[in-house]
């Protein structure tokens, strides 16, 4: 084996209490039985140290893919391969985790074993989009490794202009706030778009994220094009005994200062008899009071989801949060799930037709205006979609009467049931 590269700077990252990735690399370099892995680890450390010294990165992209797939691999070729030969091809395979990231040790061991055969021995749990990232395989082994794990059930995730790997919070599996079946939603959507994950043919990436309640532990509203957030529509549940318990243990002042006065719509107050009054009509399901007093308060029974479209980070018009497109959607029956999928298809189809190259769905909405988007996907306007009606008088309203009529008809239909 070649000599170890000196890594004085990286060595400093072995100090301190936090688990050190450098120590992990060195374990592979120093202890691994297989020379290939030792070499790769050494070479990788060398290139990384070189980056630390020169403050620049030295990877470039490429076009590696596995047979039948247009996406799922992030190819990396070294720009300093002369010096760091063993890691000159260092591709990542993005592999979809189980929804919710639940693993058995068997799964982890099996994946590790396969990866040791073909890859660098380094695995990332997880990428920011939720994939398991098998980081460090050369072009040939990318295929071989994939074939092996694919055999026992794992599949690649998204990359490129395609539907990406979805994410969902721990939710129903272990959280009292969960209002929806996050995993089922996640699986349903993901499975429906398998083709769009593997065969990139969209204007740009498209992400689904599912959070079981408005705490939004998946950052879905800012980091996904299609954000599903659990909520409820009837009254929240109040266990007045438990509330009194909080009152006794935390004290009145604490509850007033930390719950009552923090409600964004002043929907809470403490009655004279020390029960809690909730103005459910004005509660905006922000979750705060439920978070502070989980024993006393829980979501209601009439549960469903709010769907927001168009979140993303910063390129190229600045960050966007998703916008409410469906204020409330039941997600219980088979039909509910079918119509969810239909809606996702409408959104993706319309965007695929009308999005510019490299334009995210939210950017398209910003460009064409929300109303055109709604008409494109066949969704009626709703005041819940806006913080406030228009402030600008620059609008043409020839069709006012017809549009007003639509509203009255809808309301009449709703009233009729």
């Amino acid at each position, binding site marked *: 084996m070649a000599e170890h590269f000196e890594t004085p700077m990286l060595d400093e990252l072995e100090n301190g209490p936090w688990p050190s990735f450098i120590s992990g690399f060195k374990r592979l370099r120093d202890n691994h039985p297989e020379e290939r892995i030792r070499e790769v680890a050494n070479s990788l450390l060398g290139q990384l140290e070189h980056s630390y010294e020169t403050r620049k990165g030295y990877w470039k992209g490429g076009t590696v893919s596995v047979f039948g797939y247009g996406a799922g691999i992030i190819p990396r070729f070294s720009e300093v391969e002369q010096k760091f030969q063993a890691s000159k091809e260092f591709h990542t395979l993005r592999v979809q985790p189980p929804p919710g990231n639940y693993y058995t040790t068997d799964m982890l061991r099996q994946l590790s074993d396969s990866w040791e055969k073909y890859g660098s021995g380094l695995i990332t749990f997880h990428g920011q989009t939720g994939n398991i990232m098998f980081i460090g395989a050369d072009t040939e082994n990318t295929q071989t490794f994939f074939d092996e794990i694919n055999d026992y059930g794992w599949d690649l995730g998204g990359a490129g202009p395609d539907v990406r790997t979805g994410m969902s919070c721990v939710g129903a599996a272990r959280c009292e706030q969960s209002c929806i079946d996050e995993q089922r939603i996640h699986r349903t959507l993901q499975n429906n778009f398998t083709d769009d994950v593997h065969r990139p043919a969209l204007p740009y990436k498209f992400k689904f994220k599912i959070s079981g309640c*408005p705490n*939004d532990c998946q950052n879905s*509203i800012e980091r996904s094009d299609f954000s599903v*957030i659990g*909520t*409820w*529509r*009837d009254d929240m549940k109040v266990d007045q005994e438990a509330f009194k318990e909080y009152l006794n243990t935390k004290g009145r002042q604490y509850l007033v200062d930390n719950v009552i006065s923090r409600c*964004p*719509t*002043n929907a809470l107050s403490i009655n004279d008899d020390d029960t809690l009054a909730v103005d*459910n*009509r*004005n*509660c*905006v*399901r*922000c979750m705060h009071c439920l978070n502070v007093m989980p024993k006393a308060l829980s979501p209601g029974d009439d549960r469903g989801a*709010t769907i*927001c479209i168009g*979140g993303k980070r910063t390129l190229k018009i600045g960050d*966007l*949060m*998703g*916008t*409410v497109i469906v*204020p*409330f959607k039941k997600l219980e029956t088979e039909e509910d799930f079918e119509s969810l999928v239909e809606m996702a298809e409408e959104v993706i189809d319309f965007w695929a037709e009308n999005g510019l190259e490299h334009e995210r769905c939210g950017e398209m909405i*910003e460009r064409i*205006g*929300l*109303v055109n988007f*709604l*008409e494109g996907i066949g969704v009626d*306007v*709703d*005041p*819940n*979609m*806006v*913080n*406030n*009606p*228009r*402030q*600008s*008088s*620059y*609008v*043409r*309203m*020839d069709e*006012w*009467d017809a*549009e*007003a009529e*639509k*509203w*009255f008809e809808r309301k009449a239909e709703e009233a009729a049931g």
Partner: protein
Amino acid sequence: MHPAMRRNYGNWAYHEDPQPGVLLHVSKDGQKVWTIKAATQRILDVYTIRKICDIADQYADGYIRFTLRSNLEFIVTDEAKVQPLIKAITDAGFIVGGTRNSVTTLSHTQGWLHCDIPGTDASGVVKSMMDELIDEFTSWNMPNRVHITTSCCQINCGGQGDIAINVQHTKPPKINHDLVANVCERPSVVARCPVAAIRPALVNGKPSLEVDERKCICCGACFPPCPPMQINDAEHTKLAIWVGGNHSNARGKPTFQKLVAAGIPNNPPRWPEATAIVKRILKTYKEDAKDWERINEWIERIGWPRFFELTGLPFTKFHIDNWRGARASLNSSAHIRF
């Protein structure tokens, strides 16, 4: 300035509101002045002016002030003069009120009476509406002050307001090509269009302009610099109602008004449809808002969906903004009232 105001200039301690239309200001030295506030028609004939002067001379030491909503203020330092003054004002046909949590006089612009670009009248609209809102002017029934504005074209000289009644055009301008060459500086007109819908063009061999009707948002901005861009049209000039413009800093920061209703017939001489909507909004506000909530704050608390529900006004695609910065107006949250 009334000598009592001069004497106590910068030295006032507090005020009270003895009755609608009457303010009592007390100075730090305990001096008192009563102000009696009364509405006028703003555009005054010399007879009316002299009538006001007579009242002021007889009851109010010969001083008169006008508020920025064209209301009169008479000042007296002797409480005994208050009721006689009120009587004199009332007898002369003016209306006492407009203080505190009332609906004060609608702000006023020129309209058909004088302006060159009005889509509707102003004095007539104000008169018609105030006839119907007079009880709200003379009493304290509103949760907080209500400042209503009117504007007779989209330029909006009346400014923003708790409620604003403005003209909205619904068709692009028709161009009188014969006039353009001589009357308009074409580059100015082109530059004035906020959506770049106007292009120079040759029409019948003469330099003129053309409008891309799909782009045009009927704002009327091209009309003042180029009257041949005929935006006004008896049929396609509708009224629109906006709510929630609030310039005071009390509680929240100043806010812009938002569109709530449009397509309202521009229906002289009394515009009953517009008045009906204004009254409906005021009624809902009166019943539902908490004390001190201005209209914008009330709606902020109950949410816009509820506003449309309670007032029975339709919500349409036109309510969704698409102008610059519109993304800030979208609901990017799971905050929803059910």
